[in-house]
């Protein structure tokens, strides 16, 4: 009887670990806001649609601009190893690839690759691979556009 209880406890633990692993094995849903930062004047204006980015846009180095407008927002659903290409407002193609789930120190993390191309010069302005906490955000800044710059955010979660 005692052996049966012990075996049941081990089986329960194994099942829970298995279920946890399977739950992490899905695809990714990525939110990619594309923000236009302009010099502006006076008080800083931040588009209410990008409130989630407000804490970052309100302090250096983003204080060089005072007007932040959401130009576009891509919601990408990516399977592991899958990619999605979308056009930036400056007509540059950007490709986001979900490379897979990974583990960090106490957090679930996701490995991603972002490529931004320059179609006229036929080269990749940016090609980066990074590991991001699930639900966290990474920002890429610097592509000039209409008297300002483009800010591209990437935030991904496991697809339910």
């Amino acid at each position, binding site marked *: 009887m*005692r052996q049966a*209880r*012990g075996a049941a*406890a*081990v089986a*329960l*633990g*194994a099942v*829970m*670990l298995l*279920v*946890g692993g399977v739950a992490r094995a899905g695809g990714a849903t990525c939110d990619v806001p594309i923000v236009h930062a302009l010099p502006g004047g006076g008080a800083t204006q931040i588009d209410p649609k990008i409130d989630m980015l407000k*804490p*970052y846009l309100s*302090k250096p*180095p983003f204080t060089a601009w005072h007007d932040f407008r959401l130009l576009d927002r891509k919601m990408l659903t990516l399977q592991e190893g899958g990619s999605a290409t979308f056009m930036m407002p400056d007509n540059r193609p950007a490709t986001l690839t979900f490379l897979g789930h990974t583990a*960090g120190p*106490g*957090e679930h*993390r996701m*490995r991603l690759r972002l490529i931004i191309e*320059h179609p006229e*010069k036929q*080269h*990749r*302005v*940016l*090609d*980066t*691979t*990074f*590991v*991001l*906490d*699930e*639900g*966290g*955000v*990474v*920002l*890429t*800044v*610097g*592509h*000039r556009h209409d008297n300002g710059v483009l800010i591209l955010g990437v*935030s991904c979660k496991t697809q339910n």
Partner: protein
Amino acid sequence: MGKAEDERLQRYFDGELSPEERGQVEAALTEDDRLKLAALGEVRGLVANALAAEAADVDLWPGIAQKLGGGGKAAAKPRRRWGLRAHPASWSAGLVSLAAAALLLVVQPWHSQHAQNGCDIESLETTGAVATVIHMDDTPHRGDEATTVIWTTEDD
């Protein structure tokens, strides 16, 4: 000496007689009886020594504990080696604890629902631009992970 007297002398030796009976035996002790009592005493001593020696041979724990540096305290508790067998339920308790630890590992309730922005750049290549990685203080969140900004400045 008859059988009854021998049994009475044995009971005297074993301390089983009442004070009155003991007085009667002592009053009637012969030299032969005294020799028998001495012999019984020697046999009892030999048996006791033999049992103690046998027990010392079987119970190796005091020696092991001494080798391990357990000292006198470990030697004073030789029966501790049977603790696990004496409480087999501890196995089940251990396994249940293991299952609970596995559950905590999966659920991780100590982490808040608010995401952190921890980001490790594994590779970064640019063409016609210079890239700088900036780590911003993550004050709006829990503050234990910086927010990563990849800042590119394109060549003219």
